[in-house]
């Protein structure tokens, strides 16, 4: 299978005077269309790894290839474009923009790509995504007027609007009740099967991790376990 993400000898050190190394010589690759989870205790480096995978953070050394392209020597604008077009993000704290409605939030990645214009088919697609995540009733609510679960589902719809080949999710069910957790997980699974989107989910919830196809455990900045099921 194609390797959509490839990491070679990746190190991450925080700080300049007092140096803290959080990732040690990571070598890792992900198959296109796979459904993966990264687990580990807090402070293990799993979120740092995800941020580097999403090009939000730069590794101290090592190489990151996305779709076969080396990202570590790209400039800020090239990285912004790469993120916009190939990566969807679902953050732990929802991170919708409170000044916009749920539907507008979903459309923002497209507006960034298309200089603010929204063609009719994209509008329809956003409506479809809202249906898919079960938010068609509250799509015109401001983000602040929605429950945590609803915001999280809106964030999922937003991550999919530009047809990304990769979706990175950091504790997507972190502060949801168990019922919502189940719904969100099923939704991600459906999307993975429907659109063949590669998912990488960071979680500390073993139950969630066990439902994925591949579990990578990070411990003290190193890969401790890599189980393919």
């Amino acid at each position, binding site marked *: 299978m194609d390797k959509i993400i490839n990491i070679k000898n990746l190190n991450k050190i925080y700080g300049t005077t007092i140096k803290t190394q959080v990732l040690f010589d990571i070598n890792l690759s992900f198959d296109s269309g796979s459904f993966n989870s990264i687990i580990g205790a807090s402070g293990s480096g799993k979120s740092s790894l995800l941020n580097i995978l999403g090009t939000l953070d730069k590794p101290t050394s090592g190489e990151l290839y996305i779709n076969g392209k080396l990202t570590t020597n790209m400039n800020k604008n090239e990285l912004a474009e790469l993120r916009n077009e190939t990566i969807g993000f679902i953050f732990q704290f929802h991170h919708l*923009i409170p000044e916009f409605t749920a539907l507008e939030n979903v459309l923002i990645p497209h507006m960034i790509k298309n200089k603010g214009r929204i063609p009719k088919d994209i509008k329809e697609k956003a409506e479809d995504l809202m249906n898919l995540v079960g938010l068609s009733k509250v799509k015109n609510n401001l983000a602040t007027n929605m429950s945590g679960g609803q915001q999280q589902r809106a964030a999922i719809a937003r991550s999919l609007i530009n047809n990304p080949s990769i979706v990175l999710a950091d504790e997507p069910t972190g502060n949801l009740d168990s019922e919502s957790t189940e719904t969100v997980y099923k939704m991600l699974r459906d999307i993975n099967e429907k659109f063949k989107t590669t998912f990488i989910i960071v979680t500390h919830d073993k139950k969630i991790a066990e439902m994925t196809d591949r579990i990578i455990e990070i411990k003290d900045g190193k890969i401790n376990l890599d189980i393919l099921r």
Partner: protein
Amino acid sequence: MSLPFKIALRFLKSNIGQTILIIIGISIGVSVQVFIGSLIQGLQKSLLDTTIGSSPHITILSTNDNKLIGDWKEKVNIIEDFSDIKTISVSSDSPSFINFNNKTESVLIRGFLPDKANNIYKIENNIYEGKFPSEEYQVLVGKELSDSLGLFIGDKIEIITPQREMIDFTISGFYDLKIASINRSWIITNLETSQKVFDFGDFVTSIEIQVNEVFDADLIASNIISSLNSSEIDVQNWKDQNQQLLSGLNGQSVSSIMIQVFVMISVLLGIASVLAISVVQRSKQIGILKAMGIKDKSSSMIFIYQGLLLGLAGALVGVFLGLGLSFMFSKFAVNPDGTPVVPLYLDYSFIALSAIIATAASVIAALIPARKTSKLNPIEVIRNG
């Protein structure tokens, strides 16, 4: 509508209280500027009008011993061809003594062409009794002189010329030019009478000119000198003769500009600091947008647009506020006779300029927060929730 513009608009709308506060701040600055500017300009206009509105701006005199200018019609024709000339008047003047009831006063007899002189001195409007001399040997006498001599219309006064001739003049009326020294010394008659009495022939003693652009009087005067090209004349202008007034006006202009500059600087600092705070307030949103791939330039544009929108709204409200303030001032700050204390002068290009400067200043003030956003790293926001 571009995305940064949409986001800017939404940010401004969602925090409407803060937005209104900044707009009020800018508009107060602009209104003070419009008001002070109109006030100072009005003040200067009325000051100039009272000082030189009813007097010649350029005066041509003779350098000959007999103080006489020949070929005056030719000279007037040449000057009339200049652009920007409002009116030209000639006069035939001579110092004399008058005698009435054994009282003697030293006076200046001024012979005018009535129509022309009226344009400058507004004599006709200021005759409070009688009329302008219509026949020879008739004269107008000023208020102060007539009061001190106890004159009435129809009285005959005796004029003693420098050649020691004695001639009787009849009083046809009294004038009041609101300047006591003129009222006391000028005896006004027509040109022919004056020329005849003093044996001037067809000569005059001065050519007096008013121009439209009073501050160009010195330039026009030097043009007149070069085109008349005569060593027998001396051309004077009001600016050379009123240095104190000019420096007073300049001082006023400079202080008004200083006030306006400092008002604008404080407005600018206000906008810059509020927008800087709003970058901190919106850092989460900017971080999310950057994670989703918005480029630094576009994220900066959000704040530039905010500055532009605030500046435009503030300038618009400020202009209306300033005009309202000016209107109230000219309506309520009035003299007992109902005329405004200071007549305001509304210079629309000045008002437009104030609005443009305020808008430009707002955009410049927005550059600081815009720079700050482009440095913002999305990871800071994502990591800290």
